[in-house]
């Protein structure tokens, strides 16, 4: 759709299978622009890969800056998702979020498919403004123009959510109790009271949790807890995560990871 070369993103990349992504990739995946950036959410092994990718970005930035200026064509959300924006050093979203936006568990890349468009856009803005600092996502979000963010948010919002994840964990039952009944004695309402009975989220107010990667959920709850992620309206999640203990976090993440993502969350009046 544009004249951009497919490089340097490895064409044979299989992001559906995170393990393969890490070990089989021949060419360097494009890394984030900032060289000092390290993805906290992606494992070390991948980070090393990314380091090389970053090297490539640098080389490409040097060699291809002329090309970058020519590339004024508005990219489609799909193109950004699948191949990134080479001119800005933006890696393909697919490398951490999967080719169908289903998420890549080993990289803590959450699923994006079928999440609410306005919610996704709000997160990209928060990443770039550091209201939700992320060593993986801040540089990515910053490398996108406003139009590109909108396009990619729209793209992921219209993708069908992935089928039921295989995950089953021993903690799931404990997680279910917290998710559906809460722990009011320590001020935690049921997650369901804000994320919906089946965890599919409510419009742009709350995101879907069901079918989300377990490690991603754990990481986000810890970040709310530490205050590192602080883009939550009214400080709602900082408050709630702040009252959760480690076991509760692990249990509830296991529970939601094991729930079917189901159809797109539908916003509507409350009835």
């Amino acid at each position, binding site marked *: 759709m544009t004249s951009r070369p497919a*490089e*340097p993103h*490895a*064409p044979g990349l299989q992001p559906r299978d995170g393990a393969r992504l890490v070990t089989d990739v*021949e*060419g*360097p995946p494009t890394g984030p622009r*900032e*060289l*000092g*950036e*390290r993805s906290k959410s992606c494992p070390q092994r991948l980070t*090393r890969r990314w*380091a*090389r990718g*970053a*090297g*490539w970005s*640098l*080389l490409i930035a040097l060699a291809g800056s002329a090309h970058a200026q020519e590339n004024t064509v508005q990219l489609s959300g799909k193109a950004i998702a699948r191949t990134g924006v080479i001119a800005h050093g933006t890696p393909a979203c697919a490398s951490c979020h999967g080719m169908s936006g289903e998420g890549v568990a080993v990289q803590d890349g959450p699923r994006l498919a079928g999440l609410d468009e306005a919610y996704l856009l709000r997160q990209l803005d928060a990443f770039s403004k550091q209201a939700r600092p992320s*060593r993986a996502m801040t540089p990515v979000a910053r490398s996108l123009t406003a139009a590109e963010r909108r396009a990619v948010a729209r793209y992921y919002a219209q993708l069908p959510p992935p089928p039921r994840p295989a995950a089953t964990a021993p903690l799931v039952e404990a997680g279910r109790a917290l998710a559906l*009944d*809460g722990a*009011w*004695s*320590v*001020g*935690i*309402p049921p997650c369901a*009271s*804000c*994320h*919906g*009975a*089946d965890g599919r989220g*409510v*419009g742009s*107010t709350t995101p879907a949790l069901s079918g989300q990667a377990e490690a991603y959920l754990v990481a986000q709850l810890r970040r*709310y*807890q*530490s*205050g*590192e992620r*602080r883009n939550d309206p*009214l*400080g*709602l999640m900082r*408050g*709630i995560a*702040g*009252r959760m203990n480690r076991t509760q976090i692990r249990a509830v993440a296991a529970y939601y990871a094991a729930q079917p993502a*189901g*159809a797109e*969350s*539908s*916003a*509507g*009046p*409350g*009835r």
Partner: protein
Amino acid sequence: MTGRSAPSRRLATLAIAAVIGLGMLALGVGISPHLAKHRIAEPATGGFHPPPESAIPDNEFGRQVRLGKAIFTDTGALAPTYVGNSLRCSSCHLDAGRLANSAPLWGAYPLYPAYRAKNGHVNTFQERLQGCFRYSMNGKPPPLGDPVLVALESYAYFLTMGAPVGAKLPGQGYPKLAPPPQRPDYARGAAVYKASCALCHGVDGQGQSSNGKMVFPPLWGPQSYNWGAGMSDIANAAGFIKANMPLSQGGTLSDQEAWDVATYMDSQPRPQDPRFTGSIEETRTRFHASPTSMYGRTVNGVLLGDGRPTNLEHGSPMAAEGAADIASPKAAPDALKQQIRPDGASASSPQTANDR
């Protein structure tokens, strides 16, 4: 596959690896653990702790208790004949009727039978529950002895096991707030609403659903509680809101903010009081002769209690279809509007809310 030579790749990799190593050190110091914990006032818990779910016995009584809990938390689905809106009992009695300061069932049950001014006689607990369906649920009271009431009563009885009977337990009811420093004000309430409530309940107060199920309940309009409900009394609403809203942040609003936002919320249109006599004026005199009820007053040009929820701010999608659900009383005479709003001032507070 990249078209670049292997040696140059390795060189670059080495150089970058070094930079990254340093970068990570720097970052590790910068980002690490302890940013101040964001903690919000935790909800007060009464002295009494109801028995846990696991204590529900495995017999016929236990079955009733479980059914009662299910009805309490999914009222419209399990008692559809008696429910006329999209609320659940647990929308207003949080933690499935267990939470202190959220009118918990274990606080209510030991107080019955009791005399209630609302209907002028001694009420059994089941009669009390009938009122909830008629007003809060904008529906029909189930007949005494109906399986719905039996199950709900069993659940309340279960939650009360171990509590002293006949006594008012700490945490019973909603907190009674002291009169606010300033007269409660609609406009200030609107600002609080926008800042702290609209996120979940919607700018138009109609709540939000997910996957066809109500999650954030409507606060006014055709799918909310009617003008006979306890929550339509600003004093009750202020107490509930102060203790419980925004959800998970109970106790964070000031008393003034709670009174203001309750005034705003209870100055919106909602379904007619089922005791409507045919005249708004008479209904106000008989059932709403209280400074904390806005029934029969005119706010923003809308006479509250005319049963037409037309004041939904952002053109609620529900206004049109919901209007049909509501008995449409005779329009109030203009003279009445003037009588109720003699000053014609901006729609504001109940004049003497702070007398309470």
